[in-house]
């Protein structure tokens, strides 16, 4: 085993949870497993009892009459009621939070996650909060893996990161998940996040990290012969640290001739303002 560069001691059992919504998922998984074990053990004891008590032996005869106990009926009704509770009480609310309660755009960090065989590209919109438009024919794996249109003003302060996704602690993050080639799946086990990255479709997920540190992104959908090396990292930082990181990050498409381009930018902003 190499040196542990991660901030978690991993063992057997549920992984540590570092997200706000994850505790409810863990609770559901735990309740389910207690329920399963209780059901299986009590049912197994009954099975074993039958197997021993009704074994064939000299002097023992089978009875034509079947058992008449009402117990199985009650047990089944119990199972149905418990399943109803699992659905309505636990799973529905968790899923609606996971899918419907999108954080306020003002307060959240918005990123795009574009999967490709076999890497994760994280697209940050920069200070303006707007993503530059992307076009497939502009993709260049070395200089522009996302195919961002660098002539568009929204792209000027955009930047991207390959493999590592920096996010601030305690701030909601909305990630729009998509893919350039085949289906991948964006999973951060420690944050209890999983979402297929479907080419041609964009699906948002959101989470709020509760601790700082470095954790894994795992591709959770078979994507080819390099599937197992399609890993990534989430670096969770204190908000100030994250701001600093973002400010220092190079903006590849920032126009060099400041005067004319800035003028363009201003005009764009003005026209936008006028049209809205």
């Amino acid at each position: 085993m190499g040196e542990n560069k991660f901030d978690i001691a991993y063992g057997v059992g549920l992984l540590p949870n570092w997200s706000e919504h994850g505790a409810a998922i863990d609770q559901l998984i735990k309740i389910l497993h207690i329920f399963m074990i209780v059901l299986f053990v009590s049912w197994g004891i009954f099975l074993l009892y039958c197997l021993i008590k009704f074994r064939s032996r000299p002097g023992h005869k089978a009875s034509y009459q079947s058992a008449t106990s009402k117990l199985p009926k009650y047990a089944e009704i119990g199972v149905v009621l418990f399943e109803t509770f699992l659905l309505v009480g636990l799973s529905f609310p968790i899923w609606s939070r996971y899918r419907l309660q999108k954080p306020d755009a003002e307060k959240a960090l918005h990123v795009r996650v574009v999967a490709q065989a076999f890497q994760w590209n994280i697209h940050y919109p920069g200070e303006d909060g707007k993503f530059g438009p992307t076009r497939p024919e502009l993709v260049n794996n070395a200089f522009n893996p996302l195919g961002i249109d660098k002539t568009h003003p929204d792209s000027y302060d955009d930047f991207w990161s390959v493999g590592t996704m920096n996010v601030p602690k305690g701030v909601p993050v909305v990630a729009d998940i998509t893919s350039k080639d085949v289906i991948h799946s964006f999973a951060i086990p420690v944050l209890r996040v999983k979402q297929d990255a479907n080419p041609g479709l964009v699906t948002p997920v959101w989470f709020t990290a509760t601790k700082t540190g470095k954790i894994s992104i795992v591709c959770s959908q078979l994507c080819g012969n390099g599937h197992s090396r399609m890993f990534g990292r989430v670096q969770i930082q204190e908000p100030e640290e994250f701001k600093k990181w973002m400010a220092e990050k190079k903006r590849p498409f920032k126009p060099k001739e400041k005067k004319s381009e800035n003028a363009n930018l201003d005009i764009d902003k003005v026209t936008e303002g006028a049209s809205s």
Partner: protein
Amino acid sequence: MSHEHDSHHGHELSFIQKYVFSVDHKVIGIQYGITALTFLFFGFVLMMLMRWQLAYPDQPMPIVGSLFPNGMPNGLMTGDFYNELGAMHGTIMIFLGVVPLGVGAFGNYLVPLQVGAPDMAFPKMNAASYWTYLTGGLIMFSSFFLAEGGAAQSGWTSYPPLSVMAGQGQTFWLFGMVMLITSSLLGSVNIIVTIVQLRVPGLSFFKLPFHVWAQFVTSFLLLLAFPPLEAAGVLQLMDRLAGTSFFLPSGLVMGESVMDVAGGGNVVLYQHLFWFLAHPEVYVLILPAIGLITEIIATNTRKPLYGYKTIIYAAIFLGFMSFLVWAHHMFMTGMGTVMSDFFQVTTMIISVPSVVILTVLIITLWGGSIRYNVPMCFALAFLPMFAIGGLTGLPLGLSASDIYLHDTYYVIGHFHYVVAPGTLFALFAAVYHWYPKAVGRKMSSFWGKVHFWGSLISINFVFFPMLLQGITHLNRRMYNYPLTGEGTTLWDIYPHSASIQYLNEVISIAAWVLGAFQLVFIFNFFLSIKFGKKVNDNPWEATTLEWATPTPPPHGNFLTEPTVYRGPYEYSVPGEKEDFSPQHIEPKPA
């Protein structure tokens, strides 16, 4: 009855007509059985190779590795080869192994006998079904020898765009699949018509053995669920060969070049079509198995089934509901709340008939006189194994817990408990139980028990640790960890998986031991043809019609057409001399 005529006075059939291109449902059933068992073993071998890579990643495989110069250069498995093994293991086990064994072999062999018919309704169509299946299977199998790209490697689910971009093997897979589906359709129509039309006098629907009911429901599932997959398969084939893009969206970028396709397709559409088959397919696997062990349990407890009608209604309801749960495999595609709520509710509802069936079987034991012969041992082991499989489906069927567990080894553990120690154990039980009818001799009980205990123990060391690995979020379909990059150990790449890597070794060793115990079965199976203990026509003292035939049953089955007087499970009837009262023997008036 022309077939009966054939069997008594007809001309002698040549060897090829009698044993190769036969139209006798029993010969076809046995052909299905032997072919399916062979494919099962082959699929198992593929998995044993994969388990080497998982237990000892990137270490050369001794001896065996040299057999695969392309897939394992210098004994080291490539990622492509691992994916081929994975995709083909799943496909072979399900479509070439378990379903043909449950429906093709036992459905064919037993349904006409249990309804008292001389043969299937359409004997030639029955033969066509087998030969189509064999052709499809061989097409798939042959793809391993393709010079370019080898066999299909996009998982048994074959999701596009990956499968559309994959090598030639995928085309073979799709052609093979279309053949298999055609075969299933021919078979299922045949079984349905046989059950509806060819029941002997007195055999009303509610006097049928539950196994016949199970095959009846299964056939409807095959008939109604497979066509969407056939459509999906053909559409995917068009995407690959004819340049269409049913499943390809616009703007796909491979490497740095934009793919030259029309686009406008949807990748999730295929998944809906696929799972619309593949969930009912789960019940196609299980229902015949449950039918078979119901017969075995009733026979060996020497008492009537508890809740005969209940279990029939449960099976029908299960079959119906199985069409309404498919999207619970797809929660992570980005499903909204309405869809996910619907499919979670249906998934919880479908657990009810499953619980009812298990309850019926276990309460049947109450008050019985249980004989622990080999088939009964396998049948009884099915109950707790299937229960584990069913229970572990709960956290996967709830979308919230599925967020964490989806695509982990928990899923693999779950469905293998359903299919391997569940369904396959039931099928083993059935082989041991009906072997004397087909051969005239019993398989060795001693070696049968060795096979049973060896398999039961080792198989739990295979699949239970997978549940633990899944809880610790070990992802499935990972063939190794990279030797270059950020680090060279699992601890660096997937640190959360490192603590459970040792379980991979445990699982792999258990899998190889499990394989060794199957050799016991194979030897027992073949040697008993010659050396097994000779038996009479009804060695288990059972009640259903197949035991009323000579052993082995001749072409045409019954010497005289039987008439049915009573239900299928009349054991230990008070006031009767024997503790079993066959269906075709008229009760003496009191």
